[in-house]
């Protein structure tokens, strides 16, 4: 919830606290005591205000009754397990909690090893039991701005039961006797929608189970596939354009990665739209680092399926190129290299100009990690071969940045890398290289002149604006 971490004004107090001896002279005791963070846990609100204790009548074990009675007992146990307990209250219903836990364990084993247990009546009961346990309103996040990189996730208090329910459900879905044609009556769109909402859970263990569950459902229920994709679309779009908050993006992308892998060729328009309008904009999100690997994998999957998508993808990345966040820039450069690894030479030619204009900007970034990451491209043999083939286009774009950095970059490692790149260019195309070196100065002067002309143009325009007396409200007096 509302975080509470006053920061000491560092710049100001630093003078007073540089070393213990200074401390003594200044007479300032260091008072800031930061409380050690506690592991937090929470559970859904719906359980909290139960007052009376829960009573479940113990049932015999499944293995202790004759085979023909087992299906009936199985149903009864499922019904019992619909009861949910309040795990925030660690003292309540201890006995019954333990009873449910052992029952769930028994059910897990039962669906794994038994045969002939899955009667048609069992399907709605299984889905009901799972729904009762897993579908719940997720509680508010404990920290106001939950930062998954910094903050410990809040763990689900009811996990001892929840885990077994998920385990049971997965075994059920994977069971040899499982028949999607019957199950689809119960595992429907509404069920899937609620399942997808749970991906926002802060508990990584739960998201991991959800991933498997959704993957199985996608695999077994053909009729739900389009719906699942559409809803994931909606979750992502909301995440990108509305809330910037959703815990399960990486997990959903992981599932999508394997879904994309199975797309038939030629790709449907719907899938291409998903790539361009959803996956590419996902790069703009602040928390990109949490799901970047999965995202880049999806993108590369798409390009391996259909290389003609390379141009829109790279143009998309260039459009959203980070302006201020160097960390993200490094991620973009990494992804771009993955794309270049699989790019077809014909596609490369289409995109090389805007692409290398950006790379040239990265190479001259004052942030050495960005510059370094971009310069590493020249260590990649395949990229090098592409550059070599097109050196007459790429060299003029890169030259002035490289030339300038070789003289001015603050970081010696970068300067050394740049020298290597320049050397490589020189070997590739020495005539062009010499020409560019010779014209470097005059080019700079031409640029400066152009800059001056621009300034003059705008000055004239502004004079004109004054002369015509455009008032601030946009009304031109006649």
């Amino acid at each position, binding site marked *: *919830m*509302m975080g*509470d971490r*006053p920061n*000491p*004004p560092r710049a*100001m*107090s630093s*003078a*007073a*606290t540089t070393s213990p001896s200074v401390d003594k*002279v*200044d*007479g*300032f*005791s*260091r*008072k*800031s*005591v930061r409380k050690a963070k506690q592991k937090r846990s929470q559970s859904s*609100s*719906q359980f*909290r*205000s139960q007052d009376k204790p829960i009573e479940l009548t113990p049932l015999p074990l499944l293995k202790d009754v004759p085979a023909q009675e087992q299906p009936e007992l199985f149903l009864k146990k499922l019904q019992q397990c619909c009861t949910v307990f309040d795990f925030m209250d660690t003292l309540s219903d201890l006995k019954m909690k333990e009873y449910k836990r052992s029952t769930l364990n028994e059910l897990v084993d039962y669906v794994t090893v038994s045969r002939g247990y899955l009667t048609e009546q069992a399907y709605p009961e299984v889905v009901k039991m799972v729904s009762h346990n897993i579908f719940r*309103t997720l*509680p*508010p996040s404990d920290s106001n701005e939950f930062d998954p990189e910094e903050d410990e996730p809040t763990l689900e208090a009811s996990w001892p039961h929840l885990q077994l329910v998920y385990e049971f459900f997965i075994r059920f879905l994977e069971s040899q006797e499982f028949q999607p044609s019957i199950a689809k009556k119960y595992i429907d769109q*509404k069920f899937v*929608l609620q399942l997808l909402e749970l991906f926002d859970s802060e508990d990584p263990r739960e998201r991991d189970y959800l991933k498997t569950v959704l993957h199985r459902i996608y695999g077994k229920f053909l009729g739900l596939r389009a719906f699942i994709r559409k809803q994931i679309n*909606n979750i992502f*779009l*909301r995440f990108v*354009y*509305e809330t910037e908050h959703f815990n399960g993006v990486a997990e959903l992308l992981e599932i999508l990665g394997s879904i994309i892998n199975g797309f038939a060729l030629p790709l449907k328009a719907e899938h291409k739209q998903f790539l361009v*309008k959803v996956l590419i*904009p996902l790069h703009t999100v602040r928390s990109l680092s949490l799901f970047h690997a999965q995202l880049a994998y999806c993108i590369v999957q798409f390009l391996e399926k259909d290389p003609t998508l390379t141009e829109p993808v790279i143009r998309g990345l260039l*459009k959203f190129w980070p302006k201020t966040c160097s960390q993200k820039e490094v991620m973009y450069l990494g992804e771009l290299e993955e794309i270049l690894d699989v790019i077809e030479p014909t596609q490369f030619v289409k995109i090389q100009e805007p692409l290398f*204009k950006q790379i040239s900007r990265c190479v001259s970034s004052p942030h050495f990690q960005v510059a370094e990451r971009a310069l590493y491209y020249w260590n990649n043999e395949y990229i090098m071969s592409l550059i070599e083939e097109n050196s007459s286009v790429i060299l003029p774009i890169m030259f002035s940045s490289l030339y300038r950095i070789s003289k001015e970059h603050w970081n010696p490692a970068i300067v050394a890398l740049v020298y290597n790149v320049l050397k490589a260019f020189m070997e590739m195309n020495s005539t062009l290289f010499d020409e560019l070196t010779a014209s470097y100065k005059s080019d700079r002067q031409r640029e400066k002149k152009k800059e001056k002309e*621009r300034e003059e*143009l*705008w000055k*004239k*325009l*502004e004079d*004109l*604006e004054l002369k*015509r007396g*455009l008032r601030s409200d*946009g*009304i*031109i007096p*006649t």
Partner: protein
Amino acid sequence: MAGADGDDSLYPIAVLIDELRNEDVQLRLNSIKKLSTIALALGVERTRTELLPFLTDTIYDEDEVLLALAEQLGNFTMLVGGPEYVHCLLPPLESLATVEETVVRDKAVESLRKISQEHSPVDLEVHFEPLVKRLASGDWFTSRTSACGLFSVCYPRVSSTVKAEIRQHFRTLCSDDTPMVRRAAASKLGEFAKVLELDYVKSDIISLFTALASDEQDSVRLLAVEACVSIATLLPQEDLETLVMPTLRQAAEDKSWRVRYMVADKFSELQKAVGPEITKNDLVPAFQNLLKDCEAEVRAAAANKVKEFCENLPEDNREQIIMTHILPCVKELVSDTNQHVKSALASVIMGLSTILGKDNTIEHLLPLFLAQLKDECPEVRLNIISNLDCVNEVIGIRQLSQSLLPAIVELAEDAKWRVRLAIIEYMPLLAGQLGVEFFDEKLNTLCMAWLIDHVYAIREAATCNLMKLVEKFGAEWAQNTIVPKVLGMANDPNYLHRMTTLFCINALSEACGQEITTKQMLPVVLKMSNDQVANVRFNVAKSLQKIGPVLDNNALQTEVKPVLEKLASDQDMDVKYFAQEAISVLPLA
């Protein structure tokens, strides 16, 4: 516009368009921001025939550029030739209203709403309304989302056939397939209801409202709560019970805490919208439930509204409702397990005393205030202290002073500097209410202790606090109580404390007046010009510049001038600099 055409040849459109296409985003952005200048250079005719088509065709750019463009176009009416031609602006804005980035789209919609007012009723039907329809039936969700914001601006000014179409479109969007569009529609529902005829509010809006309020996504349902306020305001009292209340009751008990939070957050507005009778019968129990909600978020939002809710209760039985229904819940919240809930309550609870009057306050509220003053969470105590003025008016602060003091002392020594900073800010207020005697006896030592706090922000605030106290208690008080202590610090072995003396002098000289400044403060400052730490010396120069205007000319010439001249030849650069600055500013010549 005479002579404009002649000038145009100077600025061929190609040159200007080059500027809009510049490779450097920043330059492109600058050009777009001066789009009006470009349009002016081109004249209205060519702006319409050349610039706008160019803009419409080449919209593929960075969102930042598009945002600037969307904003500019909203102010372009005169540049295309006035209201007669304003529809020329629609094509580029239409494209902008379909882009993915929300801020761009919102800005485009804002501009469209703006220029819709400049359309004649005929143009509105011929040009604007078809655009709204196109957006409303667009393929991609973005255009449909944008359409939601445009219905209400054209509805009042079109014929009844077109009105019927608009209502139909809005209805369709309310049940759109994508939740993004339903959210957009839900958030504009209230606004749209306001421009509809009452009959249609009852027939159309209510059913949409009911549907959105029971949407499968809580993000849609919670927006319906906002619409509820507007809708309830539009309907006659006798219809509220049947048309609105069932939905509102359901929202207050929604299974999603976000929806309940929204109800709590909008509670005062809802209360005003439904009127006193429904408030008494329905909202009071609903409010009680929210105060007892299982999620702390909801309780905190409700706790924030306690004062406003009570204030707006019908006066005839306000006191009775508060005493029997609200106060018991409030009492429980005082010992809530969540500090944010307690802190929210503490920020408004004092306000109840004006509503309940002296006797009830002493009997029922005072124990709560005292309990909160002892709360383990500093924010809670702080919120109580910062609202003391409400109680002061009703029962006087003396009632509290015994409990107040320990609370203040503890906050003054809190480990978190922000807490210490906050309590300092209330010192002048407290001093005013508690009086000079109480202050001297109990609080003065605290105020002086802050001057040697280890955090600069606290020392700075403490300095400022002294100035405010002097303004309140007068120069004589200053001379007797604080000036000696402040000046004493000038001999402290710690240079930061010595500098604090200078900062205090800077702050106090004006309030203390010429006599104290000249006789007591100036000698100390001058003596410090020999300090071995350069930071102290240049602060002497700064202080002299600051207190110079308070001094008389004689002191300036005979005492200040020689010292500054000496400092101006100091070996430290900064000392020199500030000494020279002081010399040039003060009338020393």
